[in-house]
């Protein structure tokens, strides 16, 4: 069930923001709760142990060990979501972001509301209610999101850097590539190590043959030579 919200931008240009499903949200939450619990416990027990070792007792334990641990645990979500513009470390890892229904960064009020309602989303335990509501509601919103008017979307993380070289002019006496071909090449080179060798070789050969080029001879370091050939092609030099 792919859902999206549409942002109506200037001049009739529309942009779609895909809404995150339960899987992505849950994974982000699982990452966050681990960070939260580990940091809070590490602080609480670590500082508690240290104070005990150096002989500080009584009131100080509360303010130096317990209070920061509680703050980490309870303010992790609201504070980070506010400071990081609708993200938390877990959401960032999953490429997710909280936005308002208009696609904007949520304000402090909306963030507080969705976190107060976390209390009932997590009822009776393990977020059962929140998961059930998010499963059946439009745009996979839990009660907190419905109350705050927020939703969680996938965030495009592509930087300007990723376009570098895409529009370069061909060098002197070198064959040029269309934008599409360049992009395919860039994509293949970026994902080179993530692809199975036979897959990337097949794709590389298809690209080279489409340019009417001969692939390097098979043999020692074939993978590396193939990659170098593609890089050379992208940078404007043809290896014939």
């Amino acid at each position, binding site marked *: 069930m792919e859902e999206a919200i549409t942002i109506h931008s200037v*001049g009739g240009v529309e*942009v779609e923001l895909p809404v995150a499903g339960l899987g992505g949200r849950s994974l982000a939450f699982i990452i966050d709760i681990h960070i939260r619990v580990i940091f809070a416990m590490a602080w609480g027990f670590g500082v508690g142990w240290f104070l005990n070792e150096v002989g500080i007792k009584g009131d100080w*334990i509360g303010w130096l060990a317990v209070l920061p641990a509680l703050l980490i645990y309870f303010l992790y979500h609201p504070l980070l979501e506010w400071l990081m*513009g609708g993200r938390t470390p877990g959401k960032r890892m999953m490429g997710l972001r909280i936005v308002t229904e208009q696609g904007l960064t949520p304000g402090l009020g909306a963030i507080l509301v969705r976190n107060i309602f976390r209390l009932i989303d997590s009822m009776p335990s393990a977020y059962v209610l929140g998961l059930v509501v998010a499963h059946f509601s439009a745009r996979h919103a839990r009660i907190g999101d*419905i109350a705050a008017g927020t939703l969680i979307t996938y965030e495009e993380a*592509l930087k*300007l850097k990723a376009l570098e070289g895409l529009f370069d*002019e061909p060098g002197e006496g070198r064959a040029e590539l269309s934008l599409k071909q360049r*992009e395919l090449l860039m994509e293949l080179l970026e994902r080179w190590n993530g692809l199975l060798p036979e897959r990337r070789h097949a794709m590389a050969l298809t690209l080279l043959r489409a*340019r009417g080029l001969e692939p390097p001879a098979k043999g020692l370091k074939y993978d590396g030579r193939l990659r170098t050939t593609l890089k050379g092609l992208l940078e404007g030099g043809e290896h014939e």
Partner: protein
Amino acid sequence: MSDERNAVGVSLEGRALAGWLRGRVEAWRRQEELIKRQQGGRVRESDEALELLRGYRGVARDLSLARRLLPGSRVIRYLEALLLRAFDTIQRPPLGSWAQIRQLFSRDLPREIHALRGAIAVSAALFLLGIAAGWGLVSLQPELIALFASEAMIETVQNGELWTDDLLNIVPSSVLSLQIMTNNIMVTFFAFALGAFYGIGTLYIMLLNGLLLGAVFAFTGQHELDGRLFEFVIAHGMVELSVIVIAGAAGMRLGEALLRPGLMTRTEAFRVAVSRAGVLVAAGAPLLVGAGLIEGYISPDPNFDLNFRLLVGLSYWLFMLLLFSGRLQSRRRSAS
């Protein structure tokens, strides 16, 4: 830019497009910089804001061109992300978060308290009803205290002591304060958020808390300890219970919005109620920090006599009343 040479597989149009996009990269970089500066709140120059707006239109044009000529390209993905960020920056409300917090206390809080005065009265009545019921139940059937209090607590009272007597020998004041603050803030948030179940959850919380208080007072009264319990409770209890009653009123407002949404859809009415009634909870929760400190440092300490406790309790409660009615804020404004 493009010449008449038409290389293998590359149309003249394609070359022109590449040239055009190449010429736009600098504008995109500048747009990113402007967004960063605006979001950081460092620059509020009007010509920079205008430049951001012009750049935003430019990015929208680039995107629409790229969509037509380069479907599926990463250029589109980048431009969409850039356009959304610019859109977000331009649409951002003019008030920063701190200004919003100030506005919450000076304008929204007194207004919402006034709007919800009926609900606050009902919430307080429910709470008192709970107290009366708890008192009545335990007075008529003393063994029913087992429903409300733990065995250890009952045993302590039967031995003529209060469970609060040795409190400071067991936990330091700071830890006690923190435990109490956390617990009370949770109860307050629950009283509010449970209003999402058509208000029934809030009714339950208010009645239950009243029942507990009434039952415990009736039980300690049977062992002539109610005076001492009152002494323990009075310094922190007035603000603590008032905040919970007010949060209950906010929760009931949510229930009402769901039951009688009026001309809006249920979701809309619920959302409006959350953002308006939520103001009471947002302002009330910080007061529980002070109440927690009093309950950790003053209430269990036998060195403070009843008069001092009454003074602390009443002063803090008065402070709450002045804050919630907006008098404190308007006085400060006129003084400055």
